[in-house]
């Protein structure tokens, strides 16, 4: 049996085993498990075919990365609905750090200027940026939603609006970075990351795989921090009104913009 057939058979066996287990314990997850697996298979087959096309026509790589960034922005934006123009904010917070870092990594020669290198690199960085944007944005919006009294207290005590918001944004950024910090700290100890595994399976030496994985991980740290900071800044800007006033996103959506006192 060829390795390709063996991979499909083994994968299918795992899905069937998991579905049987879910059915046996009446978890109600048998159908979702199978559906998710089939969907993943179809999506990966489509992406594989698309990437094969991109490899033949390299200029399509730009469109491919643009689609990834747009999808990430739409996904993250849908999680930040309380924020006006959430999708645009998510697009800025994701695209600027992720694409800048991709270009820097390619420009300094860390990866080659080929679709084969650029697409996975951009994909990893866009995915990380999306995660940080969503986590930070949601945490900040939730904190502002419940922290109106504290914000007013800080303003009443003479804080400028930006200073009053600072503890909220700081806390949200810290929360947004927990996954990538934990991932970086535990790399190789808890799980072998995807880039490393992919390179090993592709025939690279362990030293080369480790070096590239390290580069991606530290780039991710910087990208996610920047994404978190950008989305926090955009949310803060959406809250601040003239006269050092703060209008919370939910309140702003329910009322017309505040005007300066007469």
């Amino acid at each position: 049996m060829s390795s390709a057939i063996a991979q499909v058979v083994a994968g299918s066996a795992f899905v069937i085993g998991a579905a049987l287990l879910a059915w046996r314990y009446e978890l109600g997850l048998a159908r979702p498990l199978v559906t998710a697996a089939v969907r993943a298979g179809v999506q990966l087959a489509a992406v594989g075919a698309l990437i094969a096309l991109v490899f033949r026509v390299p200029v399509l790589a730009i469109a491919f990365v643009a689609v990834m960034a747009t999808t990430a922005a739409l996904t993250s934006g849908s999680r930040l609905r309380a924020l006006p123009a959430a999708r645009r904010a998510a697009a800025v917070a994701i695209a600027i750090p992720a694409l800048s870092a991709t270009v820097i990594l390619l420009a300094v020669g860390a990866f080659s200027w080929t679709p084969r290198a650029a697409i996975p690199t951009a994909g990893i960085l866009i995915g990380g940026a999306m995660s940080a944007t969503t986590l930070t944005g949601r945490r900040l919006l939730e904190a502002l939603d419940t922290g109106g009294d504290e914000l007013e207290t800080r303003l009443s005590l003479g804080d400028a609006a930006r200073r009053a918001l600072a503890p909220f944004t700081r806390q949200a950024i810290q929360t947004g970075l927990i996954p990538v910090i934990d991932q970086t700290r535990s790399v190789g100890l808890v799980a072998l990351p995807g880039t490393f595994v992919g390179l090993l399976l592709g025939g690279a030496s362990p030293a080369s795989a480790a070096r590239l994985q390290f580069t991606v991980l530290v780039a991710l740290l910087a990208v996610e921090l920047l994404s978190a900071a950008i989305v926090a800044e955009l949310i803060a800007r959406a809250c601040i009104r003239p006269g050092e006033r703060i209008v919370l996103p939910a309140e702003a959506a329910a009322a017309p913009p505040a005007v300066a006192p007469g």
Partner: protein
Amino acid sequence: MGSEGDPVGLEVRELSIARRGRAVLRGASLTVRRRRVTVIVAPSGAGKSTLLRCCNGLLAPDSGEILLDGAPLASLEATALRRRVGLVGQLPVMLHGTVAENLAYGLSEHDDRSERALTRALEEAGLDAGFLARPAQALSGGERARVALARALTRGPELLLLDEPTAALDGAIAARIGETLRRLAHTDGLGILLATHDLAFAATIADDAVALRDGRAVEGAPDEVLAAAEAAARAGRSAHAAPTSEAAP
């Protein structure tokens, strides 16, 4: 004690503001004089808190204006305005840290941040120096209310806005806070604007009184305003108890 000739601190002119789509204030006008305690009485939801927050610059009115010593609030630097016009909210929020850190929060090197100054502010609010080192977020509701008052005082305000300051206090402590507020007005010269629906407390402290009705402010002699508020509250209670009576809409 102050008199009606005392200088005007805050002047609210034809103030209107809607909150969450509902008109809360509709052309409210009133005056807050220095050296006097002005009490606003009104039922819950009548716009007392909204009015106080407008006076502190936290909310921008839809129309009308507020003057501080004759200058429109819009022309003043917001952070400086809020130090000059202190606000103690209805739900006093304690920031993370000790009581001393709360009292000193936001004070600059030009302010008196000494332990003596913080203790003096605490004592004004009816607490002693033993509270300075206590974690502020572990205080009871009444203690928080008093620390919030002390925290506003450490900024050396010229005017003080208080939203239901006795809501979490027992009678004896409320009376002591009342004495402090009267002394701050009559001796130290502060102008105080205090919103409450505790009419008994209001009667002990008011130099001037204002009732909020249908979004408008009705100024008058304290005994008249408080008597009218008491009658309105009684009518409201009767209507609530007997919804078929004539008083019920």
